[in-house]
């Protein structure tokens, strides 16, 4: 079932991964960087949530906070992160460390820089197994070969002793996935896993991830900027802008009933192979906001074409919009939803001659 925003006020009732009002702020010399500023979402086991946004939207920082990777830095974090009924943000370092790599695992954008250049693939993957299991090196190695085989690396027995630079980009990402899945994690976080790959290799990796999810029944959080990838793999999606989720819902709801001007902008600004070639692209004007001086009210309002339509003495500029329900499984952070203007706008668009 669609699993997004939890509207229930029942603290004991947690989604499998349940992030509530997460904020991650970094004090810097220039001021407080509000990288993540109140993000809420849930993911159930066996489901895939895609977090979509441009650089600086806070999508990676959010998931690194879930993994506890900001611990020991200056980051200030508030909110709640529940994984399988355990709150992680307030937990001790050792509790989180034991979950990292075992219950939750992460793969990264550039598998070449994410793998240590000096250790063999087998060493690095086996290490992930040995930290969380009482096993001999031999057992770890056998398990590593089994995993490499599972993610489609041919000749796993031989390649286990090779080094990252001897692997191709696609094979490296497969090895990263093998490393992440070696302890059967219940949550897999994939941070732009195919962005650095060629499109034909990307297709292979996405197929592999879908296939593995059927086997492992993990919850997957996919961070990406590519709406094509979202459509391919995600059950649910959350669009982020300026450190906040601005639209969440099932993928088909968000794609076909997009309800936030920023989502519209994203969908319209990309050239699409599945449509007749547009004469002209329709970019979102302006640039993404500074995370130190976020615009007042709705942080998208300086780039938004609908500020006038919302009206009410510049409500967009003065008031912070909440997430308003569009349908049962769909919410958007826009006053157009709150003021029931969405349908009218949609109809108007349809009547407009293309």
């Amino acid at each position, binding site marked *: 079932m669609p699993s997004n925003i939890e509207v229930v006020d029942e603290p004991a009732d947690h989604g499998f991964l349940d992030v509530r009002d997460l904020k991650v702020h970094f004090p810097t010399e220039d001021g407080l960087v509000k990288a993540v500023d109140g993000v809420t979402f849930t993911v159930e086991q066996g489901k895939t949530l895609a977090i979509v946004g*441009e650089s600086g939207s806070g999508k990676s920082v959010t998931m690194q906070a879930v993994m506890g990777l900001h611990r020991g830095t200056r980051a200030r974090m508030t909110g709640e992160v529940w994984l399988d009924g355990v709150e992680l943000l307030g937990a001790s370092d050792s509790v989180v460390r034991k979950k990292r790599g075992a219950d939750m695992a992460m793969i990264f954008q550039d598998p070449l820089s994410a793998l240590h250049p000096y250790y063999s693939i087998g060493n690095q993957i086996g290490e992930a197994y040995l930290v969380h299991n009482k096993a001999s090196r031999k057992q770890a190695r056998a398990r590593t070969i089994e995993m490499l085989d599972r993610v489609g690396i041919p000749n796993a027995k031989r390649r286990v002793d090779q080094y990252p630079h001897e692997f*191709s980009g*696609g*094979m490296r990402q497969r090895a990263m996935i093998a490393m992440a899945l070696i302890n059967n994690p219940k949550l897999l976080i994939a941070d732009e896993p195919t962005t650095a790959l*060629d*499109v*034909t*290799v*990307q*297709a*292979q990796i*996405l*197929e592999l991830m879908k296939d593995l999810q059927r086997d492992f029944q993990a919850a997957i959080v996919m961070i990406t*900027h*590519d*709406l*094509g*990838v*979202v*459509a*391919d793999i995600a059950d649910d999606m959350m669009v982020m802008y300026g450190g906040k989720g601005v639209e969440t819902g099932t*993928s*088909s709801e968000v*794609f*076909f*009933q*997009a*309800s936030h*001007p920023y989502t*519209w902008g*994203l*969908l*319209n*600004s*990309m*050239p*699409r*192979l*599945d*449509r*007749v*070639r*547009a*004469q*002209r*692209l*329709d*970019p*979102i*004007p302006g*640039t*993404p906001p500074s995370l130190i001086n976020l615009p007042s009210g709705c942080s998208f309002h300086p780039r938004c*074409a*609908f500020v006038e339509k919302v009206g009410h003495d510049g409500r967009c500029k003065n008031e912070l919009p909440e997430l308003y329900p569009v349908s049962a499984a769909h919410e958007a952070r826009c006053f157009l939803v709150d003021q029931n203007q*969405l349908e009218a*706008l*949609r109809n108007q*668009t*349809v009547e407009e001659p*293309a």
Partner: protein
Amino acid sequence: MSDHAPVTPSTPKTSSAPLLEVENLQKHFKQYSQTLIKRAAPPVKAVDGISFALEAGQTLGLVGESGCGKSTAGRTMLRLIEPTGGAIRFNGEDVTKFGTSQLRRMRREMQMVFQDPIGSLNPRHPVGSIIGAPFRIQGVKPPKGVRSEVQSIMERVGLNPEHYNRYPHEFSGGQRQRIGIARAIALQPQLIVCDEPVSALDVSIQAQVVNLLEDLQEEYKIAYVFIAHDLSVVRHISDRVAVMYLGKMMELTDRDVLYATPMHPYTQALMSAVPVPDPDRAEARERIMLSGDLPSPNDPPPGCVFHTRCPKYREQLSDNQREECRTTIPLLEEKQPGHFAACHFAEVRVDSAVTVAAPVAPVAEPQAGGAAGPAEGSGPSLTKS
């Protein structure tokens, strides 16, 4: 190994020469074997015989995956890298035979925009001096002075002319790319080679830059060689598209023809692999999966370089036909008028539902695209518009 030139697929039927005509361009990098004594090994054929023609004011898209040689090809065309063989005719003159002074004059007419707007701008120079550099180097004196000329160019590409004295790091990624573009158009060249100019940019910024490039082309009649790996962007901006794989040109034809009826199995696979932002179609369509990885360019497969990954070779060909793929290098031949492909068995796939040729059923729910969204409801156009 046969390195003979394929026929030049020059489309123009006009009498005058095209702006840029590249014929059998080659760039081979020397290689040495690493044993006791250095010995010359077979060279890496980064670009191995590509040919095309480009008319003034038109755009040729050069697509391919990493390692296919598209960037090397772009640089070789401008002689930023010396070609190993072949001819580059610019306005009818063979650029490969130019001496230093001719080359310098030629650079006025041929410019380049790079992918990485940070790496390609000198961090120690203010943008005014970066954009004005071509004037100094070429000794061009604009009537109203360099400064005012640079400021009007800055304005033209959407930069604030008051930022004349700022440094590159004070600009965002998109703005830096505008600086790179401003520098390239400063002398109003006839040709700009754009090497992945938008791939480092966010989607919304990418659209701004693509639009800018289109506007500038319209205004100054600049021809582009647009090098990119993103098939959707290439389709949007190009008039003609060339697909490259392992240094060779696989297919070359008009944009609409290529995207509607690709003939080369590689192009077909490439297009089917592009994810489309539409969950229903993503589910419905079938992907042509390529097996394995890109072979090493140091040691390309014999015969057709693509045969090791070719789905057609794997699934549809007879043993005799496969033999041909393994032994004979397919030449870039005109399979249909104006449609070139380098494949012995090139044909339009019957089930080309995998490509964009699939009719776009009007999306059930209208896109709430606000003021925008011109795509709704219009049928597919398989032929050239």
